[in-house]
Each structure stands twice: as structure tokens, then as C-alpha cells.
């Protein structure tokens, strides 16, 4: 299981990467492994505004559909079309293939998320 140091993580196995006032959001390597072969991804329209905890998209493996949640408030400024066309990219590299990019303002929400170390421990506890 790959966990990148500089990212923030959620209990729903999403990651958040900050770049100035933008946040990139995707699912973790643990999530893509648990899902198996990803065959469909649905993302929101650009300009959609979300509150923390909202479902912003759907990721479907052969067997099942799973919601993906946004852990922070934000307005979508870009979506990753490449993974809509080729969902398997997320299986190949879950950290490179982000899902949405949002404008965010509430830094405290991000800081409340898990660090890489905390997330690793969380995954191990999930396995037990």
C-alpha cells in the first residue's frame, strides 16, 4: 500500500493535495486496491459548489458503485477528464490521477484530516 507523505487523508480513503488556494482530490492506493478494476467514474460539473461531506462523484468497479466524498468545502474549478475516458488509470496510479480540483478557503478543515502516518495506521486498523 502506497501512502504519499505530503498529502492529507480521509477515513473514506480519499486524499487531498494543496497547491496554494487549490486542492486536488483523489482516492488512495488502498481504495483502488480494495475496489479492484475500476470501469466507470462520474465526476461533477465545473463550478459546482460542495460542502464538506458531500458526495461529489461515483467510482464503479466491475462489482459495485461507490460514492466519493469531498472532505472540505470547495468549488470545482477543474475535473480530470482523462480518468473519465480511462478509469483504469486510477488503478495504475491513484495519486497521480486526481479526480477534481477545488478552490477552498477553510484551511482548518484540511488540517483536521489525517497525515500520512495517521492514515497508514488507520488502514492497518481497518485490515484487522
Amino acid at each position, binding site marked *: 500500500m502506497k501512502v504519499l507523505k505530503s498529502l492529507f487523508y480521509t477515513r473514506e480513503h480519499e486524499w487531498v493535495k494543496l497547491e496554494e488556494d487549490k486542492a486536488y482530490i483523489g482516492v488512495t492506493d488502498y481504495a483502488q486496491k480494495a475496489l*479492484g*478494476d475500476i*470501469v*466507470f467514474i*462520474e465526476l461533477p460539473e465545473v463550478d459546482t459548489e460542495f460542502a464538506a461531506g458531500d458526495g461529489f462523484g*461515483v467510482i*464503479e*468497479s*466491475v*462489482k*459495485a*458503485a461507490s460514492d466519493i466524498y469531498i472532505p472540505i468545502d470547495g468549488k470545482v474549478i477543474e475535473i480530470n477528464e482523462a480518468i473519465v475516458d480511462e478509469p483504469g488509470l486510477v488503478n495504475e496510479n491513484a495519486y497521480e490521477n486526481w479526480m477534481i480540483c477545488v478552490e477552498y478557503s477553510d484551511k482548518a478543515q484540511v488540517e483536521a484530516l489525517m497525515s500520512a502516518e495517521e492514515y497508514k495506521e488507520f488502514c492497518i486498523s481497518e485490515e484487522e
Partner: protein
Amino acid sequence: MENVKETALFASHEKYGGKVIDFAGWALPVQYKGIIPEHEAVRTAAGLFDVSHMGEVEVIGEDAFAFVQNLVTNDISVLEDNQVMYALMCYEDGGVVDDLLVYKFSKDYFYLVVNASNVDKDFQCMVSNKGEFNITLKNISREVSEVALQGPKSQEILQKLTDTNLDEVKFFYCKRDVLISGVKCLISRTGYTGEDGFEIYSDNNNIASLWDKILEAGIEEGIMPCGLGCRDTLRFEATLPLYGNEISKDITPLEAGLGFFVKLNKERFIGKCALVKQKEEGLKRKLVGFEMKDKGIPRHGYEAAVNGEIIGFVTTGYYSPTLKKNIGLALIDAEYAEIGNCIHIIVRNKPLKAEVINKKFYNKNYKK
């Protein structure tokens, strides 16, 4: 996982990296390497499945033929010894108890293979229909293990392990006491994938070594151990019904398009009256195939609609690994069942466009 039953291959699943889940009360692998690569292996080479959870019931006695003939919808009078037939067991109202394979060893010895989740219900149904028939019913499900070797390379692989000439085991025939790498097995040229292949039954204590031997023998051909995930996508593409999806106590075989396996001209069988009546009155619902025109994957249980009105539901739907399309089977009002019709599938509260298509998604690749 608690309170789940383990097959005799439980340790093998761990050993081969299977992702084990609770499947109808059984700890079985949903996948090893991945549903898609396993699916492709079965379509192009071979795959090996643990299907030991399936139920087996022996019917022995001088009335065995008459008992089974009354129990199932298909006409078993045409069976030769060692021939196998697909059939359904129905309730008096025409709903389905289960679908099954009927193996005829001789006129007084039949072997019925039923779905894991239905074993107890089926056996009770058989016992309650025993009546005056002079037979013995034996549920041997827990004593028998079963593996399915499926795919175009199946014969080539299995032939390496046996002196029995497998050309002699024709499509939907079986052979008993076949030695496969020294282990005595019942084999049949049957399966649930739409490909050529064999289903192999043996004692619990022999099955793990057999599993290893078959996988070893098939390395060159590209065999893969397969989980139940691709078993479902494979059978779906081949339009083979699954109990609980396409058929159930609330869906008759006629509605599911399985009329070929229901011989209404038979003197009698359980459910005959109701099914004759349903046929005479005309079907109100039909099982159809459909392809998504909008982006979205149809799933079991999603509703189908026309002009905002619900007309039925999806029985099975997938991204088809072979056709690389989002397709499904749906049980809908008969008036909308014509090929070419436009219907909607409600995906997460959104009606998405779909077109009714021929439900034979994949041309079965049997060796007849």
C-alpha cells in the same frame, strides 16, 4: 467473517492470493488477480473455479425417473444414461424454487446439482414431494467438492492429467469414476461461463491436490484461478440466468425467457397448471437485454422506466469485459420489450437512456 462455511479449498484460496468474502454464507474468493483478467483468461484460455458450495442431491430407487420427471420443468425422458440436462424446479404457482442440473446415471439413479443458497429449501421441497415415489433422497452437499475448469483450453489441460479420452465426454454428458491425476472424480462437460469446459466433482479430502495439479498442468496454456466475481460477469454475458436475479419465486421461467426448458406437453410436473395458464394468457413481463446509450452502469435492482413511469427493473447489469459496453438484463412490461425500443434506466435517481437489444450478448463457444 463469522458463521461462514469453508469449502475444502479454503486454504488454497489463501495460498493463491484470493480475496475471500462471505458469499451466501460461504467464505469464497470474489477474485484473485482481478475480475477482468480472470474473465479474459476464461474467454481466451482457461480458468479454475471453486464451486464446492453448490449442492448435490442423490435420488436413488425404482421411481427415481418418475420422481425427477415430476419435480422439474424439463423432459428428462429424452436423457440417455450419463447425459446431463438443465431444468428448473417450480412452485405450484409457477415461481421458481431453483434451477439445477439433472445428471442421469441410470433410470433409478439421478444426481441433482443445485444452487448453494437454495440447498436446504430445495431438499425440503424434494422431501415434501416424495409422496408415494419409491426413492431415497440424500443431500450429500457437504461431502462433495466441486471445481469448474472453464475456457477453450480446458480439454487440453485436463487431458494431461487423465487417461480417459475426453473427446468421449460430449457437451452435456458426464462420466463417473474418471481418474484425474489419480483422484477418482465425476466429470461433466458443462459450465456456467458460455465456454467449453468441465465441472469436476470429488471428495473433500482430494480436492486441494486436484486444484494444485490442474493449475500446474495449465501454466503453459495461461490458466488462472478464478473467483466468483468473473463467474457472474461470464454467465451474464452468456445470458445464463442466476437465481435471485433473472429467476426467483416471483419470476417464472417463461417470463425469464427459459420456455425452452419448460415442457408444457409433459403429462405433469409441479407448477405446470400455472405455467400453461400464463402462456395461454400471454406474458405480461419479459426479460430483455439492453445497452446503455447514456454513460452509466446498470446494476441489479435499478428501475427501468418509460416516460417517467416504472416499467420494470434490472435483473443483472455490468460493464461487459468482453463487449466493453455497459449492458444489462431487465424484466419489463411486455409491451416495451421489442428490440430497438428506447427505455430509461434509473441510475442514482437519474433516468439514463438505454436501447432494448437482443439479449444474446455473447455467442457461446461450446464444443458440441
